[in-house]
């Protein structure tokens, strides 16, 4: 019984990603979309907090949004899974519910 969480805000601008990670449970997936994809980069002032909170949680990022913003996939934190829209649909289907952190 796992949840797919989506986060569409930059973690540098709002608290949504941190709040989401603080409520996600082991087995859940947190998918960063839209401006949320900035949370998936290594080497930022927030990367440690994101990696630290994500224990037991799968981190994923929507690749089309990453490309749009000019972020090279090589910048992603270790273990972040990259999906396209079809992959987003699969994640929504294979988790029991979706929660949007707006």
């Amino acid at each position: 019984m796992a949840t797919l969480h989506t986060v569409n805000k930059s973690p540098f601008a709002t608290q949504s990603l941190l709040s989401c990670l603080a409520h996600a449970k082991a087995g859940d997936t947190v998918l960063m979309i839209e401006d949320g994809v900035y949370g998936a980069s290594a080497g930022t002032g927030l990367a440690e907090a994101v990696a630290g909170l994500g224990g037991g949680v799968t981190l994923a990022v929507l690749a089309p949004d990453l490309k749009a913003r000019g972020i090279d996939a090589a910048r992603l934190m270790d273990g972040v899974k990259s999906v396209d829209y079809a992959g987003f649909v699969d994640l929504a289907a294979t988790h029991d519910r979706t929660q949007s952190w707006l």
Partner: protein
Amino acid sequence: MKFGIVVNEGPYTHQASDTAYNFAKAALAGGHDISRVFFYHDGVNVGTRLSIPPQDDRQIQEQWTALAKEHDLDLVICIAAAQRRGLLDENEATRQGKDANNIADGFRISGLGQLIEMGIQADRTVTFGD
């Protein structure tokens, strides 16, 4: 699998309606069903037929209308949210004494109950917003 989709933000200003559209397209391409798309809050503004984006930009309303035609989708605009924001169909305009309406082809206006019903009927409900 049957998806229900909620769109909470208007077109162009937020990416939410674009992401919802790309998600819906991918779900249909993947063989899933979409039981309904419910437009709430500023999302109701997606359904105006009066939008004229620049030539080199996407026409968000027309994308939804075309997708709905192709896959027989049920695009529902929340009536309470729509009234506040000035989105009307012909019936509502007549009933309310307004001299114009602006709803686009393929969308229909109905109550919030349709959102709950969608949540009950769909296997998964996914929300796109701000």
